[in-house]
């Protein structure tokens, strides 16, 4: 899922400076799973902001509301009443939620309370790790299910580089060498001969490098098209 981390509190306080009535908008999907922007987190953040305002002698009223997702239009409709009544919204959804809210509520200032970090997995409670770089042209079949774009710091397609040491990446001993993992996996799958295939230069157009991306499913369009009131 999308993994994010709340921005440092001081940064958020600076961001909302000057506003007197604020809505903290949480998201019930990805950022709830990583305990960064869900209902509980929205509640805690709202309390902290109220307390901080009180301690610094400022007037600040903070509302809270969490919807299932901020990236689907039908859920944003649930926020209309509260959004209309505030000066600014602090969304603690991922960057998609913040932007979608800004598109829906074009005349309202929507501020990002989260730093969206990556798409990843839960390794254990409290530990999330990046896995997918959204390159748009998945080659996990060739690499034993381990992604060289997300897990190699140099996104080598014919790795490893000479910096791999003891299974760790030269960038830091806290991270695995993606290619060491790929080699191990190909071995255990009896597929090491695939390692010797030269992977040619990639077409990065399917990745971020090609510019903003969209997916259109003509077969699904116009069915149940959602119109905001």
């Amino acid at each position, binding site marked *: 899922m999308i993994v994010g981390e709340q921005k440092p509190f001081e940064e958020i306080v600076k961001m909302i400076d000057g506003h007197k009535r604020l809505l903290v908008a949480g998201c019930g999907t990805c950022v709830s799973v990583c305990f960064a922007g869900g209902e509980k987190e929205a509640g805690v953040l709202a309390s902290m902001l109220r307390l901080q305002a009180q301690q610094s002698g400022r007037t600040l009223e903070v509302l809270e509301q969490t919807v299932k997702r901020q990236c689907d239009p039908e859920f944003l409709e649930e926020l209309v009443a509260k959004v209309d009544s505030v000066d600014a919204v602090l969304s603690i959804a991922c960057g998609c939620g913040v932007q979608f809210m800004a598109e829906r509520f074009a005349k309202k200032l929507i501020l990002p309370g989260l730093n969206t970090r990556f798409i990843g997995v839960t390794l254990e409670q409290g530990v999330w790790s990046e896995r997918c770089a959204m390159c748009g042209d998945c080659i996990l079949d060739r690499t034993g299910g381990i992604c060289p774009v997300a897990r190699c710091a140099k996104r080598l397609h*014919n790795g490893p*580089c000479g910096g791999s040491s003891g299974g760790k990446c*030269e960038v830091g001993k806290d991270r695995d060498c993606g290619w060491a993992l790929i080699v191990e996996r190909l071995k255990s799958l009896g597929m090491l001969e695939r390692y010797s295939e030269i992977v040619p230069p990639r077409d990065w157009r399917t990745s971020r490098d090609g510019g903003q991306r969209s997916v259109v499913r003509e077969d699904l369009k116009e069915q149940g098209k959602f119109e905001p009131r």
Partner: protein
Amino acid sequence: MAEAAAKKAPPPKPEPPPPVVGPVSGLEKVIKSGGFAVTAELGPPKGVDLAVVQKKVAILKGWVDAANVTDNQTAVVRISSIATSALMVQQGLEPVMQMVARDRNRIAIQSDILGAAALGIRNVLCLSGDHQTFGSEPGAANVYDVDSIQMLMILKGLRDDAKFAGGTDVEGGRPPLYLGAAWSPDADPADVRTLRLAKKVRAGAQFVQTQGIFDLPAFKLEMKKAGDMGLLDKLAVLPGIIPLKSAGMAKFMRKNVAGISIPEDVIQRMEGVKDGKEEGTKIAVEMIQAVREIPGVRGVHIMAIEWESKVADIVGRAGLKKGP
């Protein structure tokens, strides 16, 4: 009818540029003629003071067949490898221009290679490049559009097929290149270091320079593997020779530099002497004499880091050259 057909015919394609016939460089010539090549490293300065380069050229001339120019090594910004290499061509010391994948996409790589070749640079070493977080600009965006093996393929395509990576034609002249790569025979994961070397050869590598070798038996084993895979017929291997200065330096490298394995007896030898630099030089000379005997070794690559003056001493003592 014939006239109309003639009007519609597209203009004739220009003749492809003539093929490149080697040897294209002094280094390639030495290797192809069965000589024992000597290369060393020349680190460019962090500013525009070319006198620094001239000084290093003067120190190395006559003691090496070619000198590698590093490309923003360890991601620390220095004057460019291409500019330094072009200057060396002018000054009569043949460069091996190092090019990393870290900072340039395929457009810039191909463009820079054409420029380099036009300026008389012939030997190119294709590398992935140390990650930018190590260096002086840790916040820089990562390029790595291609890796070192893909870079070799692209440069080979420019030279042998007169084609750019995207399929369009190289016009006017092909870059005459002698293509090289790096090899870390002692690096992890051990299983694939020779398999990866094979990929580099298939991609176009004609010579490789290795990471510093201190463990002779281990290196001999890797060379045997490479030989068994049939790589040594088409590939010149130049093992890396790093002269040690102290036991501390040896321990530091063993701990911190990936791909360098220093046996305990070498460390003990360094610890047991007063003059570390002299002992380190002796070890380097012995290593050169030892690797010379290994089939497939066609020279050595001396990495006297910021100690270019040591190269002449080592090369002289090993009996490889007599100087300018």
